[in-house]
């Protein structure tokens, strides 16, 4: 077992490779039970503190970016790199791992795949990892749901350095669950009843690794693709824009609520107008009607003008002119109502409406009357009513603000979704395939 509960790193020791007689430096000589010779790739086991060759590894395909023996402080913990491993899955793709040793708690791991880095801790750093709960294609850890992303069987290709277990006899089935920027790996032996160990990884930027070990980040491999637990920058953008839009909409509703209280809507005109057919004016035309006067008290207001007529299988249309009696300013609208009903195939049907409305904008205070010029298909139409309400909530303004304010969050959402689809395209368990 790795030597732990110390106050500093143990003194390094040098042993000789029994195969090529090269010197091998051990950074945890009491704790490490296996090591590999960097020169001949012999796999050595310490039996009674004497190295014996028990196998061999392939030569490393790449050079370790962080040299063995390098010390660094990562996430507040001091580590020393004691081993460099190369792993692969079915010879399809490979990744690199750096075994980190801390004198108080033991091992952690740094992994690098396509230029993306993770620092991975076991239950020696995160005791709650023993309390992971399983669901269907997900696990719960510390009240966070991690979704199943990948299952694979890793194979060790090369080893440089030392460790406290026989990695050659390690045949694992690994399941990875993600909650970016975190990932939990569930490692289980291939035997049916073998114990499962859990490790939690956290995505790190290369510059953090470089800073921790005093390296030049320019020497790190470039990042390609999107890896499973890579945090989405677009996710933060979406969250920010969504919150900002929500705040602004809230401000709009507060303003509207304030105005509803201080400038409430009120009916300023509600009259039934008598109509009279005028055959001399032409077919469908009625005599013009002038309404009684009414007052608009507010400095400027919106007016909702609602016209209603009791038409049945008929139509009524009217040009209504709002006239300011002081300035002679006019607002002219033409609106019609039509309502049809009948029975067809034993079913009663209706179509149209007996009322219609129009919104007048920014009408100044003053005394007004209406000039109404009606027309109807039926000479028997004898009345219509007009109702004018001031200061109604102008919903179209709210919808317009909502649409404009939603543009940025919508764009951000589309980008988040695109990023997540790309992330999950590397998984056999993608929610986007369902």
């Amino acid at each position, binding site marked *: 077992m790795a030597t732990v509960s110390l106050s500093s790193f143990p003194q390094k020791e040098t042993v000789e490779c029994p195969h090529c007689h090269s010197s091998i430096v051990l950074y945890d000589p009491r704790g490490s039970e296996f090591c590999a010779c960097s020169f001949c790739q012999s796999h050595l086991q310490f039996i009674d503190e004497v190295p014996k060759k028990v196998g061999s590894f392939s030569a490393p395909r790449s050079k370790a970016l962080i040299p063995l023996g390098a010390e660094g402080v990562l996430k507040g913990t001091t580590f020393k790199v004691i081993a460099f491993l190369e792993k692969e899955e079915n010879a399809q793709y490979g990744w690199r791992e750096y075994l980190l040793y801390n004198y108080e708690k033991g091992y952690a791991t740094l992994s690098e795949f396509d230029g993306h880095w993770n620092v991975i801790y076991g239950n020696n750093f995160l005791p709650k990892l023993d309390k992971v709960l399983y669901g269907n294609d997900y696990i719960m850890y510390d009240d966070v749901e991690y979704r199943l992303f990948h299952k694979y069987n890793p194979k060790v290709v090369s080893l440089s350095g030392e460790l406290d277990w026989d990695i050659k006899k390690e045949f694992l089935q690994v399941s990875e669950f993600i909650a970016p920027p975190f990932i939990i790996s569930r490692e289980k032996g291939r035997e049916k009843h073998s114990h499962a160990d859990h490790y939690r990884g956290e995505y790190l930027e290369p510059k953090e690794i470089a800073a921790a070990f005093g390296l030049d980040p320019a020497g790190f491999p470039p990042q390609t693709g999107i890896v499973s637990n890579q945090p989405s920058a677009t996710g933060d953008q979406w969250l920010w*824009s969504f919150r*900002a839009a929500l705040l602004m909409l809230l401000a709009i509703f507060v303003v509207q609520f304030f105005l509803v209280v201080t400038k409430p809507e009120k009916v300023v005109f509600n009259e039934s107008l008598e109509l009279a057919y005028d055959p001399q004016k032409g077919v469908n035309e009625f005599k013009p009607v002038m309404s009684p006067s009414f007052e608009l008290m507010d400095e400027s207001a919106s007016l909702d003008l609602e016209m209603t007529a009791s038409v049945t299988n008929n139509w009524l249309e009217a040009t209504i002119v709002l006239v300011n009696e002081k300035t002679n300013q006019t607002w002219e609208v033409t609106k019609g109502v039509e309502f049809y009903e009948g029975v067809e195939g034993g079913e009663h049907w209706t179509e149209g409406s007996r009322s219609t409305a129009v919104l007048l904008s920014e009408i100044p205070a003053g005394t007004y009357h209406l000039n109404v010029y009606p027309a109807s298909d039926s000479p028997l139409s004898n009345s219509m009513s007009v109702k004018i309400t001031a*200061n109604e909530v102008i919903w179209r303004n709210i919808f317009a603000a909502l649409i404009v304010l939603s543009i940025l969050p919508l764009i951000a959402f589309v980008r988040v979704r695109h990023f997540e689809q790309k992330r999950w395209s590397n998984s056999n368990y993608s929610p986007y395939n369902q």
Partner: protein
Amino acid sequence: MNTIVKCLYVFVGITIVGFYSYSAYYGRALWEDPVQKNTEYKGNRVYGGYGNRFNHK
């Protein structure tokens, strides 16, 4: 999202809230229904009431 876009969005947002407040107070609709202003009614109109009647017996 860089700071410029954020600042721009906040600026546009505050402008929208301000314009909305002005419009709500003065009863201004961002887009109006068809209204003719300061015209004199001449009676030259086309009735719209015929349309639906052709759809029914």
